[in-house]
């Protein structure tokens, strides 16, 4: 494939003492793709994500994110990515607008741009009535959508979502994925970790991690075919079981 690459990873290793969290990972992510990391807790998804965001330094390997080297150009990477953490990444005691303004500000956007984009965003999300309400007073699903919108507020090239839909009802989850598709269609590359198998099927490609290694990497349809499975859940169970027997 000669599509433009957003991320290239070659022989990534991350050790914590004797524990190998990422064991020789090699993969590419293409621009505008929705790329899913799938794996049990402790399989190394979050570690990989943190290295790609510049939150953690790899032990070895060649890694490029948005065209920049993770060892030497962390700051350039940070300006070009968005990040949404497992937990809530917004402040409950700030209003909807204040949250947007704060995050816009730390990415160095001009106040004039922040105001304009914030107004558009608030209208798009249907939050006009609660614009100046504290975040703690609005429902969880709205917060989740707002958190994602804030993560892409500064128009990053890549956005990282670390288990973004934990604790959200299926309807909101579906709406949330609609927003992800919208962002991807605008050319933003999306890296998402999850352990919901139905979500895995929404991704363009998934990478299944077991015990720090990449066990399989392909489109969901192809994976189901290769492993002769009924759905992604089957694929995952087959791979996870194989790993434990080794």
């Amino acid at each position, binding site marked *: 494939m000669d599509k433009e690459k957003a991320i290239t990873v070659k022989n990534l290793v991350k050790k914590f003492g004797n524990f190998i969290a990422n064991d020789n990972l090699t993969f590419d992510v293409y621009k505008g793709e929705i790329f899913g990391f799938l794996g049990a807790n402790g399989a190394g998804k979050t570690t990989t994500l943190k290295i790609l965001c510049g*939150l953690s330094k790899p032990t070895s390997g060649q890694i490029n994110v948005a065209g920049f080297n993770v060892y030497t150009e962390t700051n350039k990477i940070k300006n070009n990515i968005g*990040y949404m953490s497992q*937990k809530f990444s917004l*402040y409950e005691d*700030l209003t909807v607008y204040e949250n947007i303004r704060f995050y816009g500000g*730390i990415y160095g956007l001009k106040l004039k741009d922040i105001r304009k984009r914030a107004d558009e965003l608030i209208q798009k999300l249907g939050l006009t009535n609660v614009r100046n309400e504290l975040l703690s007073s609005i429902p969880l699903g709205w917060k989740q959508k707002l958190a994602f919108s804030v993560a892409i507020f500064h128009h990053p090239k890549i956005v990282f979502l670390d288990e973004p839909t934990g604790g959200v009802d299926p309807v909101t989850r579906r709406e949330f994925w609609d927003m992800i598709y919208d962002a991807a269609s605008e050319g933003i590359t999306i890296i998402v970790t999850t352990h919901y198998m139905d979500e895995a099927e929404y991704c363009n490609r998934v990478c299944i991690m077991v015990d720090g290694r990449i066990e399989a990497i392909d489109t969901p349809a192809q994976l189901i075919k290769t492993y002769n499975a009924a759905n992604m859940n089957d694929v995952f169970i087959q791979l996870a079981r194989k790993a434990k027997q080794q």
Partner: protein
Amino acid sequence: MKKFIGFVKKEYYHIIRDPRTLFVLIAMPIAQILLFGYVITNEIKNASIGILDHSNDEITKQISSKILSSGYFKLDASINSEQEIHEAFRKGKIKEVIVFEPHFSEKLKKEGTAKIQIIADASDPNIANLLTNYTEAIIRNYSNSITTQNTQISLITPEVRMLYNSELKGAYLFVPGIIAMLLMLISALMTSISITREKELGTMEVLLASPLNPFTVIAGKVTPYLMLSFIDACLILLTGYFVFNVPVNGSIILLLAECLLFIFMALSLGILISTATKSQQAAMLISLVALMLPTILLSGFIFPVENMPLILQYLCKIMPPKYFINIVRTIMLKGGNLSTLWSDTLILAGMSIFFILVSVRKYKIRLE
């Protein structure tokens, strides 16, 4: 710089939207100083005593009336026998009994000496000490006055003058200590809590994944508490001055500058605590146990360092509040200036730099 201001603004919202905490932060200094100033007092007024006078003559009556008119003591019950002494003590009605031996004035005239026994309830040793000291002083005074009348030998009479706090006021002792305690509490405790809170919420990761410099994050979190602590220091000084008449004899600018230095030290300690802990509760526990107790016990705030066992004295030497309390006392009460305080100031500055360096190191390790 713009990002930094935006960050401080966010911190300001956090503080202002938690009115309970804000109220505590503002009201606590005043409440503390009033409590300490009024409750813990070393002054003695109207302590109940008993007098057992076996001789009941002119001189013993004179001495008794001198003691009772001093204002420190009041006669609770006249005691008529040795047996009654114990009973009175056990009932807790009196703190001290003064016993005159039989034929007091006769002996004094013939032999030139007579005995007075002072018995004190030492279940509270501090008060017992004070009471006996006061009583002895009054009796010595009286005996001096009669010896100089009757004989021509001039006796050497020591005159004790209490410098810097001539009225032995408790507030003079406590104001510097309370400043140290509260600055430590607010600076170290509040910063460590507010930083660990971002860790707990997961927002810290987002901040670190943003182009914000990690040091901007820390500086932004610390700045509002620096200002709050400074306001509190001023509040304590003002309350001390207007309510207890605790003066500032030295340079007020130097005093405030030293306060800033100590706040800076406490903030760096708070940052250090937050790099070592993951939850707000752990941060709070460490701050309270590891900081508050030494600040109160091992700093000379209440208990003099010089009277401690040697090991504790060495331990006190590594407690920042010890130096700060000394600095504040020297400036406020003795009117000292930098030429006498430079070593304490340097030690505090050195400690701050040490804590900052350790935090930066730990912070970097965490990122790797």
